[in-house]
């Protein structure tokens, strides 16, 4: 298991940089991961991150459709907030495992 240091805190991550222990995540750490991913976090980003962490904690699987129906953001904005690979990028910044869903 690899470790990474964000804002002076050492966290456990897997080989792709996803958190092994989501409880080690803080908002300050999220800002640092986001910088690595080329994303400047705004309040809207944090709303999405809260939603993702909430879904993870509830044991629900994540899908792009679920995000579109979440009422937090629509898909178009989601792609704008986390450009490139939005679900992978946002879950990484949210400190939760990479989604294993095909949709």
């Amino acid at each position, binding site marked *: 298991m690899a470790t990474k240091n964000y804002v002076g805190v050492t966290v456990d991550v897997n080989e792709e940089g996803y958190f092994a222990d989501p409880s080690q995540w803080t908002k300050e750490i999220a800002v640092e991961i986001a910088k690595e991913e080329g994303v400047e976090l705004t309040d809207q980003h944090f709303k999405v991150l809260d939603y993702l962490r909430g879904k993870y904690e509830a044991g629900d699987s994540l899908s*792009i*459709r679920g995000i579109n129906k979440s009422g937090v953001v629509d898909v178009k904005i989601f792609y704008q907030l986390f450009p490139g690979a939005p679900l992978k990028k946002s879950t990484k910044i949210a400190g939760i495992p990479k989604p294993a869903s095909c*949709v």
Partner: protein
Amino acid sequence: MSNENNFPVKKVNIICAKGNIEDIYAALVMGNGAVMEGIETNLFFTFFGLEAIVKKWMKRPHTAVIGNPSMRMPGLGTRMPTWLGVIPGLEAIVSWMMRKQMDDLDVPPIDEFMELITAGGGKIYACKLAMDMFKIKEEDLSEHVSGVLTVGDFYGLAGGEGSQIIFT
């Protein structure tokens, strides 16, 4: 570094020429998956694939219950006898069940799937020749369709390093 990382897929151009549920969804899942990975995506619907993009057809795609040896009896797991397929309405029921099962797995209906794909920057195109064959006009097409292409136009779009053409 592994070879896959040196030559990533940068663009996919997916051709869907068939209109069964499984054919349409194979193209949509691959296309949406590519968009979600940040890969530039073009989906090209031709021949019976038009089923997926003609407004009045796309709501209820069917799957074949005759001539489909992989069709299994729901709950039993045994093969569905071909003669059962002649029962009126069976194809509609089986197709409805398939759509329902996909919906339960958060696989959206075609229209919504295309909305997700285009919202992420993916493009959906119709084939001109197939439209002429089936007497389909541009106004018959879903709002998610970006345009009508000839084969030449399609190859033009498909160019570039790391670009792949996939025929489903």
